[in-house]
Each structure stands twice: as structure tokens, then as C-alpha cells.
């Protein structure tokens, strides 16, 4: 029997192919994690491509922020380093081992953080007026957000590569489509903030601004960046609360409602909140849903404060939410969202007529970022 008959083959080429195949199979036998290694290298290559794109987005947003700040700054060449200092700044969450009083501790830290961040931007851009300084602060926050996303993804990519941990990189790969979508939304948001355009999140503010438009009103500031406009509608007294505009601000609606409730005593018969809410996939943008509770996003401080005072005074809470995606919330306002502001207004008026009697008072709070939405 000749060597060529090995394995039932008759020619040299077939023999070589058989031997190669056997050797290949032996790799899997002696090196069981070989297939995992191949998979790992594919995932890492895919992540590297996405990380590069993320870096491009980060650089694009950073460049736009720098360009916008430069117009109002006297820092010159120092501006670049100062921006990096702001991008790398951080806030440490309070200790929650003993949760008693955590909301007020969190509020204190968040307020300090927001104030110092805004102050740093104001110092950097002394030529910017009040509204512009707020908008620039928002822009730096967007740049900081995208920079943080990039650094976090890079951290897990490098950690996964260094430790050859397929489970780590696999999880990251699964999350990447959403992360890329959010990063691209941040990129679009940087355009909106650089030019002071209204964003989807501002729909609540837009709705209440339309509610008080052309009505005789008394306007005063109740909390930082938060104003109240007192109007009369169909014999009902409305205390309309919103963030001051047209600079980018969200104000302190929780503190505003609390102070109003303290000042008004038993007169307030309903608290109505209007805000943008995250829609589920497949749902229509600009759809209005109504319910009960406090429609306020964020980390929960404002929501907690309104719930606490409402419960203490036994005042019902009504909420209107305008559906939009996370990307639509931070990018220039879409037509369907802008039109929803008019529709929600009619619903708010209807609930006021139904739940608040003539001569009684209600608080209507328009929640969201007031960028590009002036005072009426």
C-alpha cells in the first residue's frame, strides 16, 4: 500500500488536503479555546472600528465647543487646556449606605456642581451675556457627555483586549448600537446648542409659554433660572412655572413648586406637569399621553420634592407626557413635537376646567430645557 492510498485518496493533492484538515482539527483538540480566540479577535476588530468613529464624534463635538467658546473668550491659547479641565471634571454621588436625607444631600452636591460649572464657563467667556453663557454651559456639558462615553467605551475595549475577556467585549459589542446612537445624538445636540436652537426636550416649556401668551400676567423668579407667571384662565388662577429662556436652562421646578405651595397654603387644588417622555420603539413621535403623577425627568430631586409637598397637602398630581426618542429629545425640535405643544395645551385647559373650580388655583409646570424658547 503506497502513501498515496492513505485515507483512501489516490493523488498527492488530496493527501495534502487530508493532512491539513487533520492538523486543523488537532488545533481544536489541543487548544480548546481556539474558536473563542478567533471570535474575540473579530469582536475586538469590530469594536475598534466603532471606537474610532466614537473618537471622531468626540473630536467633532469638542472642536465645535472650542470654536463657540472662542467667540466669547479672552483666554486665548489657554482656552484649549481650560476646556479639557472642564471636560474632565466630575461629581461624586453622596454615600447611600444610610439613605436617610439622601435627596437633599444629592441636591446640595448637584447644585454646587451646576453652579461651579456655569461659573467656570462664565469666567472663560466674559463676553457672553446671561442667555449665551447658559447656552454655552449646555454645550460644554454635551461635549463632556460625549467625551465621557468615549473614555468609558475605550476603557472596556482596552480592558477586554488586555485580559482577552470575551464576555466583557461581547457585552460591550451588544451595547454598541445604542451607544453609537446616543453619541450621534450628542453630536447633533452640539449643533443645536452652538446655535441656540430649541430642542425636543423643550416641548413642555413651549406648551406653557403658549398657555400664557397674550394673557395678562405677573412674572417673577421663584428659584434659580425658574420663573412663575400668574395668569387667569376661565376664572381659575394659574401659577405657570417654567425655566427662564431663551438661554439653555432647566431651572429648579421642584424647588419652585415647593415654594409656591408654601406661599399659597391650601389654595392650590391641582399640580399639572408637562414634559417630554421617552417613547418605546414603534411608538409615534409627538404622541400625547396623560396620567397621574409627576412628569419630571432628571435624577429625581425635583420629582421627589413635588411628590413630597403634594402628599403633605393632599393635592392631586396630573401629568402630560409628549413621546419622543432620546435622540429627538436633545436634537433640534421636530415638527411633530412642536405641533404636540399646541395639542397638549388644549388637553391641559380641559383638565383645568374639569378638576379646578372657578376661583381656585392650580400650578402648571412646563418641564424641560428652555433653549431657544423666549419669554411671553
Amino acid at each position: 500500500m503506497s502513501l498515496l492510498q492513505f485515507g483512501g485518496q489516490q493523488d498527492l493533492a488530496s493527501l495534502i488536503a487530508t493532512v491539513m484538515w487533520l492538523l486543523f482539527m488537532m488545533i481544536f483538540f489541543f487548544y480548546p479555546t481556539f474558536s473563542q480566540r478567533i471570535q474575540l479577535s473579530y469582536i475586538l476588530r469590530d469594536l475598534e472600528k466603532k471606537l474610532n468613529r466614537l473618537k471622531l464624534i468626540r473630536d467633532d463635538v469638542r472642536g465645535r465647543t472650542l470654536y463657540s467658546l472662542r467667540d466669547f473668550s479672552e483666554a486665548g491659547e489657554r482656552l484649549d487646556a481650560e476646556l479639557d479641565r472642564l471636560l474632565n471634571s466630575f461629581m461624586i454621588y453622596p454615600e447611600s449606605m444610610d439613605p436617610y436625607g439622601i435627596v437633599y444631600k444629592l441636591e446640595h452636591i448637584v447644585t454646587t456642581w451646576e453652579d461651579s460649572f456655569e461659573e467656570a464657563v462664565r469666567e472663560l467667556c466674559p463676553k457672553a451675556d446671561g442667555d449665551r453663557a447658559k447656552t454655552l454651559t449646555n454645550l460644554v456639558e454635551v461635549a463632556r457627555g460625549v467625551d465621557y462615553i468615549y473614555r468609558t467605551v475605550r476603557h472596556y475595549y482596552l480592558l477586554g483586549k488586555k485580559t482577552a475577556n470575551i464576555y466583557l467585549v461581547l457585552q460591550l459589542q451588544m451595547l454598541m448600537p445604542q451607544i453609537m446612537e446616543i453619541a450621534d445624538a450628542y453630536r447633533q445636540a452640539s449643533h443645536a446648542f452652538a446655535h441656540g436652537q430649541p430642542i425636543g426636550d423643550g416641548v413642555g416649556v413651549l406648551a406653557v409659554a403658549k398657555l400664557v401668551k397674550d394673557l395678562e400676567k405677573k412674572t417673577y423668579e421663584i428659584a434659580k433660572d425658574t420663573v412663575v407667571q400668574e395668569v387667569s384662565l376661565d376664572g381659575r388662577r394659574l401659577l405657570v412655572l417654567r425655566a427662564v429662556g431663551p438661554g439653555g436652562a432647566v431651572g429648579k421646578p421642584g424647588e419652585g413648586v415647593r415654594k409656591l405651595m408654601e406661599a399659597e397654603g391650601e389654595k392650590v387644588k391641582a399640580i399639572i406637569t408637562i414634559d417630554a417622555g421617552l417613547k418605546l420603539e414603534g411608538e409615534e413621535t409627538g404622541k400625547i399621553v396623560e396620567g397621574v403623577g409627576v412628569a419630571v425627568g432628571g435624577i429625581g430631586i425635583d420629582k421627589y420634592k413635588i411628590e413630597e409637598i403634594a402628599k403633605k397637602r393632599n393635592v392631586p398630581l396630573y401629568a402630560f407626557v409628549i413621546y419622543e426618542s432620546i435622540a429627538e429629545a436633545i436634537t433640534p425640535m421636530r415638527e411633530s413635537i412642536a405641533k404636540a405643544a399646541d395639542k397638549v395645551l388644549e388637553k391641559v385647559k380641559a383638565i383645568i376646567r374639569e378638576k379646578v373650580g372657578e376661583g381656585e388655583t392650580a400650578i402648571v409646570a412646563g418641564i424641560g430645557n428652555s433653549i431657544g424658547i423666549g419669554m411671553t
Partner: protein
Amino acid sequence: MFQSKQKFGEVPKPLTYLQCLNCNTVNSRPFKDGDHIFKEVEEKCPKCGSTKMLIIGIYVREEKAKTRKPSL
């Protein structure tokens, strides 16, 4: 300055909607820096020629979907 157009998708550009304070005609133009909703601007109304206009909206126009709605 930025290479957005080559590297990234186009960013939607909003339009500014202005209402004439004299004849209430509404017209639109591309957004300009400094525009904000409820700002009074001195721009000529294309219908009556009045120069007092109010910005009543700034938003990205959406094309009506040509494809039929998914059944799900």
C-alpha cells in the same frame, strides 16, 4: 472647519416660522443665529409689507412618510 459632511450624516436644519403682526400671515425661512421663539423681529412681511414679525416656531420640517405604516 469641521468635516461633518464627509464623516457623519447631515444634521437636520430647522426653519424659523414668522407671523406678521399686522396681517397674521405665517411664512418660514432657514434658522438664523439669534432667532428664538416669541422674539419680535424686524423683517418684511411678504404679503402686506409690514416689518413687525413674531417668531412663532423653530422646528425641523418632517416629510410625510411615503411608506405605509407597519402593521405591528
